[in-house]
């Protein structure tokens, strides 16, 4: 797995020491909050509703077991015994004291982690598929490229003050588990003949003005990536609007200028700067690729696994829901759901983190991943070890077999934590999960993605949920808008608003009406909610949502 170079180590240590000094100067009054705020934000420290919050990057969602143990240690020592994994493959600590944060940052540096550039108008943590390097369906592991981008963009002088923050996502598989169409730049590794390159998308994003990124280049040779990215970011730096925060994202730049104009400017800049890239970056990439070499996979037989599927129905259900195909036949990818019904999406306790780290050490070659769907992934597990892992997860209450089902909800922190929120998101997720479990309908409903945000910033990705829920403040009361038909995968779509919003207490019944309508009209059990939606459009669901109210009126 990737290890810090001496340069990275020195850089992170220097930043940690600088931040400690800045905190001291803030506490003794020599820095005002106005002076301190940008400094703390650059180091991932936010002020939320009830406390500070520290956001720690988990580059490309990859964690070593010892790093996970350190996160557990930090959660226990400095927080309230848990951490919150986010859709951006970060972990957030919700209760740190400002006075403790320098120690936390040192503790992170001890395991080569940091909170740098998790905020500010910079190039943020590059996100990838949580199954990267393991998925059966991938063209190549996208993480070396993600790491190359990280090295290129970290502290890149030209890109510290972009018009707005800048988010890049990369997938190695057409199955897109990284939502590349909703990012400022999306990259998909593709093959042309034998040559590997990138499909490049630009100008996606959710938030106030949701847009899906169009393709700017169908095929970009691998060696052209950094100059091409640099050309995109420079073009944006020049053309992007700085007059209006809401129009500053690259999606608006691309939209207002038109893709063709934007592309022409990028290609021109690219032609100009390409010669300056001597190929050193490709040597660096080769070095990084070597560090991401897969582990030596065990050659254990699969009979015991297959036997267990036959005799243990609980194991079988879990295997059906929580396993994904690995590129090595006798291995599997395990998604550990940390969303037991009623739990807070994304939260993991220190004990859970430690158990997962131990399982990774014993069965998973020491590797863990955080998925953007807020679960923890063991990317490489020999099938022969699955029954043992399942047994241990069961004992720890971590064997919830709900991946991809209605209770596997993405929810942002909402007004339970976030200072920007207009309504709560977490309890809505909790109630949907427990309600449908109590009804016994979870399995019947099958695959569905519900995503919830507590304000228009859309951290919970509600626009691309099959059912999206957006919490708003309507004249001092929480009110929830429902969108239908969004999708985050290869058939990405922005959901459309169903109609007037619902009060807090009405949300779960509204979701139930939508899903009862789905159960009544689906072609058969195989047709998922989103497929039924694509076949019939929103009308029957709107009817189910609103007809009662109309009848009563």
């Amino acid at each position: 797995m990737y290890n810090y170079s001496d340069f990275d180590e020195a850089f992170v240590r220097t930043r940690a020491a600088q931040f400690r000094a800045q905190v001291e100067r803030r506490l003794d009054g020599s820095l005002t909050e106005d002076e301190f705020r940008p400094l703390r934000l650059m180091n991932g420290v936010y002020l939320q509703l009830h406390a500070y919050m520290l956001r720690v990057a988990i580059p490309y969602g990859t964690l070593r077991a010892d790093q996970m143990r350190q996160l557990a240690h930090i959660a226990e020592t400095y927080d309230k015994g848990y951490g919150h994994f986010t859709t951006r493959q970060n972990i957030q600590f919700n209760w740190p004291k400002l006075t403790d944060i320098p120690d936390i940052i040192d503790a992170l540096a001890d395991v080569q982690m940091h909170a740098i550039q998790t905020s500010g108008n910079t190039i943020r943590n590059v996100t990838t598929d949580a199954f990267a390097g393991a998925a059966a369906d991938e063209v190549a592991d996208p993480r070396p490229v993600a790491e190359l981008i990280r090295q290129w963009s970290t502290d890149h002088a030209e890109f510290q003050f972009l018009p707005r923050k800048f988010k890049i996502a990369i997938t190695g598989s057409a199955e897109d588990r990284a939502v590349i169409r909703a990012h400022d730049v999306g990259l998909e590794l593709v093959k042309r003949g034998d040559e590997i390159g990138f499909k490049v998308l630009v100008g996606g994003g959710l938030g106030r003005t949701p847009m899906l990124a169009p393709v700017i280049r169908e095929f970009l040779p691998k060696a052209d990536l950094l100059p091409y990215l640099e050309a995109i970011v420079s073009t944006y730096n020049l053309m992007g609007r700085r007059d209006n925060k809401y129009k500053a994202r690259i999606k608006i730049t691309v939209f207002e200028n038109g893709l063709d104009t934007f592309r022409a400017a990028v290609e021109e800049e690219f032609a100009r700067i390409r010669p300056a890239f001597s190929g050193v970056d490709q040597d660096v990439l080769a070095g990084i690729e070597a560090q991401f070499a897969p582990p030596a996979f065990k050659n254990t037989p699969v009979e015991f696994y297959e036997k267990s599927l036959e005799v243990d129905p609980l194991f079988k259900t879990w295997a059906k829901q929580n396993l994904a195909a690995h590129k090595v036949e006798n291995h599997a990818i395990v998604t550990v759901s940390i969303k037991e019904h009623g739990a807070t999406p994304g939260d993991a306790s220190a004990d859970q983190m430690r158990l997962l780290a131990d399982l990774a050490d014993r069965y998973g070659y020491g590797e863990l991943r955080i998925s953007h769907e807020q679960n923890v992934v063991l990317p490489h597990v020999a099938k022969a070890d699955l029954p043992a892992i399942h047994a241990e997860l069961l004992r720890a209450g971590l064997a919830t077999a709900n991946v991809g089902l209605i209770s596997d909800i993405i929810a942002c922190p909402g007004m339970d934590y976030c200072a920007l929120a207009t309504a709560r998101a977490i309890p809505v997720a909790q109630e949907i999960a427990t309600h449908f479990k109590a009804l016994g309908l979870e399995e019947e409903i099958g695959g569905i993605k519900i995503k919830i945000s507590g304000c228009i910033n859309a951290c919970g990705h509600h626009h691309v949920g099959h059912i999206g829920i957006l919490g708003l403040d309507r004249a001092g009361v929480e009110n929830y808008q429902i969108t239908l038909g969004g999708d985050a995968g290869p058939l990405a779509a922005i959901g459309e608003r169903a109609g007037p919003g619902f009060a807090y207490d009405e949300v779960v019944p509204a979701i139930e009406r939508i899903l009862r309508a789905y159960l009544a009209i689906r072609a058969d059990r195989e047709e998922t909610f989103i497929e039924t939606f694509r076949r019939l459009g929103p009308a029957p669901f709107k009817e189910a949502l609103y007809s009662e109210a109309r009848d009563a009126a």
Partner: protein
Amino acid sequence: MSRKFTPKVVTANDLREGCVIYMTETGSWSMHHHEAELIEDEAIAELRLLKALGQGDRIVGAYLADAKPGLKGPEPIHFREVFRTRGPSNYAHGKQEAANV
């Protein structure tokens, strides 16, 4: 005629700990909303806020929040401020935790 002024309290977060605090009549800070000073006059409210903003070495993020008189003292009006007097709804953390011990 100007609209009727909604009474206010001055609230902020503690600089070191991050917890929610309220300014009392004496200008000290309390953990409890009902101990806050309920300010009924707009000009005085602005002055009290300025006084709070001058205490940047103790507090962070001061602002005026709508409030109303209650039995024990001022009560919040908006749900956001109600949540700030309690803590999050998914765990008994924050002020509701302190109330338990």
